């Protein structure tokens, strides 16, 4: 017993000692930096060398799109420094009284370029390449790189001619990946992004006159944190600026960003809501049209038959429910993309998924699949084998038994599954945006549109309207299914 108590004491003292060791670390000065994703590689290196010079200061970097970060800061996120990829989001914070205009400084500038895959044999002029085939760019409704690209193409009188070839992406790194994999013939990116890849070549550089200045403003938010001031100043030193240059940014030296902040690059989003709603319903409906019969077949197989590998099939069916949607989306892109095995095969039959609304339907159907199978399977399993036997002795063959017994008796399960799946299809986000991107009028369904509007400083109203509509549709669908199934129950189905 005494030995045991001794052991406990030992454990406690070890615990206290380890706590004591971490105490100095927590008292170390921390600087929390929110930065636009495009700055990641450069800022990672700058903060690493800063921490060598200032071991007492811990730099914590958090990257996301400028819009997301700005909205979090507007909601009082505990952050010391904010590096934005556009001046608009800085202005948004000024309006929200989170920062003062005079505190904003321009950290770096960037340049817009047209790139093609490194090993392309196509030596045509960049204009011809854009006119001829698919190319990627950021979504001009809310992605800054897309806004600049649209401005530049408009200045070059190309936008009207080539806009139908544009694949609009959410994230410029995704756009980069698409060109690297040759899913598209070209892309309009930042010079700093191209620096990261050795599989791309620059075929054109836009002039500064073609688009608004691409500026990266930085602001210090917490005046009380001295360490933040030290890091802020460090960003404008020779060393930090040359690191930025090495990553393809144009160094600007320490200058106030006030003149850059005069113009607004974000357009006021004009929400054409009906096309978005119509497209969402179309995608969800087509997804269900194909997924429901397939799901019923799988549910039937799982409910009625024993076979080798049943557990595996069961697990496989449930995976979309538990797998990260972005993984599902990326797998779809690899398989069904224009370079994917299945995508290439299907293109012989004129079926195309990549960056098409059909792809959105495929992603939605796949993500909704587990939700369809489960209620269907339960309703099939609930059917009394005795009733099936009775039908058999009354002369009903396999198909007739299916038509007159299984189908009507599992109808409540089919309806429940279809409604759940329909609602899921309307709300699908992660897999869709990864697979087919966020293209207005093609793949931009409700939740993607809501997301897009939230990315823009002026999109709140449109986003709210769409949110209310999606809530209404979801509620309506569930109510409808309740009504249908209660009617079936009244009729005495079960």
């Amino acid at each position, binding site marked *: 017993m005494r030995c045991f108590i001794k052991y406990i004491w030992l454990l406690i003292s070890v615990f206290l000692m380890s706590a004591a060791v971490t105490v100095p670390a927590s008292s170390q000065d921390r600087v929390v930096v929110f930065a636009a994703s495009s700055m990641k590689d450069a800022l990672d290196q700058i903060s690493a060398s800063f921490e060598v010079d200032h071991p007492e200061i811990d730099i914590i970097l958090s990257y996301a799109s400028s819009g997301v970060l700005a909205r979090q800061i507007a909601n009082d996120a505990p952050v010391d420094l904010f590096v934005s990829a556009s001046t608009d989001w800085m202005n948004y914070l000024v309006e929200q009284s989170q920062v003062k205009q005079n505190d904003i400084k321009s950290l770096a500038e960037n340049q817009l370029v047209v790139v093609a895959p490194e090993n392309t044999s196509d030596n045509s002029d960049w204009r011809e390449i854009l006119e001829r085939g698919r190319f990627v760019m950021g979504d001009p409704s809310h992605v800054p790189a897309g806004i600049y690209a649209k401005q530049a193409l408009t200045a070059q009188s190309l936008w009207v001619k080539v806009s139908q070839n544009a694949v609009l992406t959410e994230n410029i790194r995704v756009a980069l990946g698409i060109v690297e994999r040759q899913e598209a013939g070209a892309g309009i990116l930042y010079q700093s992004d191209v620096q990261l890849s050795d599989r791309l070549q620059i075929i054109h550089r836009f002039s500064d006159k073609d688009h608004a200045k691409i500026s990266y403003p930085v602001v210090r938010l917490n005046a009380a944190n001295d360490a933040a001031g030290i890091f802020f100043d460090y960003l404008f030193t020779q060393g930090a600026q040359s690191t930025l240059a090495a990553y393809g940014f144009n160094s600007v030296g320490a200058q106030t960003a006030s003149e850059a902040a005069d113009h607004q690059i974000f357009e006021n989003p004009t929400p054409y809501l009906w096309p978005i709603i119509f497209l969402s319903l179309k995608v969800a409906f087509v997804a269900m049209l194909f997924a429901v019969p397939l799901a019923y077949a799988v549910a039937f197989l799982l409910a009625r038959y024993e076979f080798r590998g049943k557990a595996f099939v069961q697990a496989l069916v449930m995976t979309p429910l538990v797998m990260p949607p972005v993984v599902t989306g990326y797998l779809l892109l690899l398989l069904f993309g224009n370079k994917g095995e299945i995508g290439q095969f299907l293109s012989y039959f004129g079926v195309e998924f990549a960056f098409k609304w059909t792809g959105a339907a495929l992603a939605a159907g796949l993500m909704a699949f587990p939700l369809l199978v489960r209620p269907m399977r339960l309703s099939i399993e609930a059917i009394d084998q005795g009733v099936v036997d009775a039908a058999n*002795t009354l*002369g009903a063959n396999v198909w007739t038994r299916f038509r*007159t017994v299984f189908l009507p008796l599992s109808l409540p399960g089919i309806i429940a599954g279809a409604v759940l799946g329909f609602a899921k299809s309307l709300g699908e986000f992660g897999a869709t945006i990864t697979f087919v991107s966020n293209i207005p009028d093609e793949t931009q369904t409700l939740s993607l549109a809501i997301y897009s509007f939230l990315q823009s400083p002026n999109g709140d109203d449109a986003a709210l309207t769409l949110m209310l509509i999606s809530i209404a549709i979801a509620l309506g669908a569930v109510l409808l299914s309740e009504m249908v199934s209660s009617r079936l129950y009244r*009729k005495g189905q079960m």
Partner: protein
Amino acid sequence: MLNLKIEKEFQGFKLDIAFQSDAPVTALFGRSGAGKSTILKLIAGLVKPDKGTIVLDDTTLFDDVSGVDLPAHKRGLGMVFQDARLFPHYDVKTNLTYANWAGGRKTNLEFSRVVDLLGLAHLLKRQPQNLSGGEKQRVAIGRALLSNPSLLLLDEPLASLDIERKRALLPFLRAIRDEFKIPMVVVSHDPMDVHQLAEHLVIIDEGQVVEEGNVRSVFASHAMQERLGERNQSAVIEANISGFERDYGLTLLSVGNPSLGATIRLHMDESTGEGMCRLLIHARDVALALSKPCDTSLQNCLPAKVAEINVSDNAHMLITCDVAGQTLFSQITKKSFDELGLEPGKTVFALIKSVALA
């Protein structure tokens, strides 16, 4: 003519059955778990035998040697399950006509005649869950009848019903036997149910045929008496209608040749004048006398000969008597037995307190 010889092994239980019957109604009788229901399923084609043959009239339903295995929906049999198994999503009328609209079977039976006979006319629009147990069972019977079956298989059609409903349903089954003349195989664990319907009785125990034959001879067998138990030992007697005492509303039934004087008086609801009747007589309802008693209310007094003497329990003896070549059991106390000095071959009079028409 149903000819059956099958083997089936499942879950450690072995079924090895062979019997044939051309009776209008064949009853399979035995304890629950004896394999009776499985035999029906094997005949219906819902369970596949390991080996053997099932032949109905000229049609081979199953033969493992020649590889014949007609699927259930092509066997043209009607099956009535113990638990009715109506289609819960169709109303009564749609259930009744299922074999026609889903199974593609045409029947010569008139729909209205079946509906009237089974008393279903007022139920046609109802959903199955709004029916009582007896009503469900009648719909199930009607549904099977209307499938134009060459053989009707009934799995404990009366077991799930209370006494009242059982009494109500039995006449329907008898009417089907007599009116539609569709041969039936009935499974039951209660001999009191089967003796009223069946001519041919098969006793099944642990997957084997223990006793088989016409109802009278099977009831007379030890195997049957064993299964009936102490309280219910009884015999089935065949008797011919030989006359009437109309003033008293009684029918005279002769056992064997009328000249032997073995006459039973009985009140019958539906006296048809001529013909053979089967009577179920419990051993406990039969007393024995050495001479013909004259001052007693008991009317039924049959001359008999003691055939066999068995000890029934501590206080009782079971006396097997021969009445005009048929077997009758009498259960009497040991005291009476000693006082009467009964021994095999001795002539006695069997006094019968009550008689049930079978």
